[in-house]
């Protein structure tokens, strides 16, 4: 701090501090405190705010546990609150998307970092990043066209004789969330690819060659040398893809099935359809909790620090 004063003088230092303070206080900390506070207050008409009925309670959070509906987990039928069910589905399927993205990305990241001719690398990276510049809504929409009942996928598969009759892909073949997972994977796979590529790239090729010389098989090289080295990249990619998937509102709305519900959609309904901002705040807070838990689990699992994830 004294360094700053000496180099840039009191005026500039004050500007730096004020800009940072405005950001962290007015745009990050205070809004989140407001959110937290509002989540304990009832939803009232404007005239009653601050009145006798405006008291703190856990009622908004209790709504999360209302309205039990039947569900089945691992073949066991249970009664479970509908929003909890949505929440669990969101977490589960976001996890599946994260794993699929990792499986798709890792070989490609290795290929880009260690196999491909370095001369064509910039072109390949540029090609790969083109879909990123096309809006997320439109990328999900592209899959809506492909998966639709009278769409090209069914036409091709039936035409080739792979399928006898067209399939309602969007309603799900394995789960009601197939369409959403396909859309999420396509939309976010690059957020897994680039961090892992960055991590593998920093691995010294000599280490791979040394392992080869010592007689390691290709899978041993990956398991013992490349994977451990790319840990921070994998952690970063997993956090990004999971957060983006669980937090996506566009993809689940564009590619829904008749029985799919994403937690962001539940929040949107409280906020924009019921106009009940307080319950919306409570649900948002639950979401923040989920995200913090995920980040901490990943940090613990991969033994990385926050500054290695956020790159």
């Amino acid at each position, binding site marked *: *701090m004294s*360094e700053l004063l000496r*180099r840039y003088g009191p*005026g*500039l230092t004050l*500007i730096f*501090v004020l*800009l*940072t303070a405005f*950001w*962290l206080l*007015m*745009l*990050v900390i205070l*809004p*989140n405190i*407001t*959110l937290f506070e*509002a989540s304990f207050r009832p939803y009232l008409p404007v005239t009653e705010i601050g009145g006798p009925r405006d008291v703190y309670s856990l009622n908004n959070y209790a709504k999360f546990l209302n309205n039990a509906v039947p569900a089945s987990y691992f073949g066991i039928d249970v009664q479970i609150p509908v929003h909890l069910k949505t929440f669990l589905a969101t977490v589960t399927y976001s996890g599946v998307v994260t794993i699929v993205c990792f499986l*798709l990305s890792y070989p*490609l990241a290795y*290929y880009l970092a260690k*196999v491909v001719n370095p001369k064509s690398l*910039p*072109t390949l990276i*540029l*090609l*790969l990043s*083109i879909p990123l*510049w*096309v*809006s*997320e*809504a*439109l*990328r999900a*929409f*592209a*899959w809506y*066209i*492909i998966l639709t009942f*009278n*769409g*090209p996928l069914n036409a091709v598969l039936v035409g080739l004789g792979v399928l006898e009759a067209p399939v309602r892909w969007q309603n799900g073949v394995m789960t009601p969330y197939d369409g959403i997972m396909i859309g999420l994977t*396509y939309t976010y796979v690059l957020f897994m690819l680039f961090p892992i590529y960055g991590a593998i790239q920093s691995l010294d090729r000599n280490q791979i060659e040394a392992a080869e010389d010592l007689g390691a098989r290709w899978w041993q090289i990956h398991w013992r040398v490349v994977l451990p080295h790319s840990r921070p990249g994998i952690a970063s990619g997993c*956090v990004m893809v999971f*957060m983006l998937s669980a*937090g996506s*509102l*566009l993809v689940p709305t*564009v590619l829904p099935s008749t029985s799919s519900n994403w937690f962001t959609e539940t*929040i949107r309904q409280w906020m924009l359809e019921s106009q009940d*901002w307080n319950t919306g*705040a409570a649900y*948002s807070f639950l979401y*923040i909790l989920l*995200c913090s838990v995920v*980040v901490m689990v990943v940090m613990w699992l991969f033994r990385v620090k926050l*500054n290695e994830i*956020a790159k």
Partner: protein
Amino acid sequence: MTRSRHLLGHLYMAAFLIYMFVPLIIMAGAAFNDNRLPSVYPWKGFTWRWFQELFADTTLWVSFANTLWVAVAVVVIAVPIGTAAAILINSIAGKVRGFLYGVMVAPILMPGVVIGISTLLFWNSMGNVTGSDFILFNPGLHLSVLGQVSFIASFVMLLVLARLQSFDPGLEEAAMDLGASNSQVLRRILLPHLYPAIAAGAAIAFFQSIENFNTTLFTRGTQNTLTVYVFSKVRSGITPTINALALLMIIATLIAAIWYEVARRRKERRLAALERAQD
């Protein structure tokens, strides 16, 4: 053995590129299909109709203009904030640094939906507390700007902070010894070193803002941005005008990409020629 694995790698790369591009091509193709529903199959004949409807859609162009305004505002606010925060955090050490860093990075990891809602609630409650109906406190695109800045500034901060690691503070010492004023040290020594990171930060801020949906949806009030408009179109029944729009966006991206690639190759050739000349 290695060669067959390399071949496998090339094939996988090709397959992945096909996976990335086929959906975009299909979407673009549907823009020319004379079918009321957006699809490439069944093909009902070639038409320019959807482009005509696209250009006649004034709501869309208003939304597009809004998107650009918001993006420019986000860049103008987020870049100075992110740069100042990076310089600040770079000059402190210890526990405070760890805490500040955590707070600065947290918005990136937070769902956009939550950022939008907390921004809306905060400014709205400020309005209630002060009893004022000042425009800032009501939902609108200005709140979208503030919501977006809260996490986009984090990206700028991280980029500038990374660039600061390669800065030699001795240069500033030298400048001060030679009698440079405080603002000269900043303007002539530090900022020029940071410009690449600041430029990258501005570009990322601009595109993140254009792409943004989650934060904008909750803060926008009744105004539209392009992503929100596309979203409402997709929900309310779509016509291929959206595909026509998508095609225009893809073409714009391709032109930018080709321009970038050509510039890169030209630079590479020039460097190679320079090296040869030096030999």
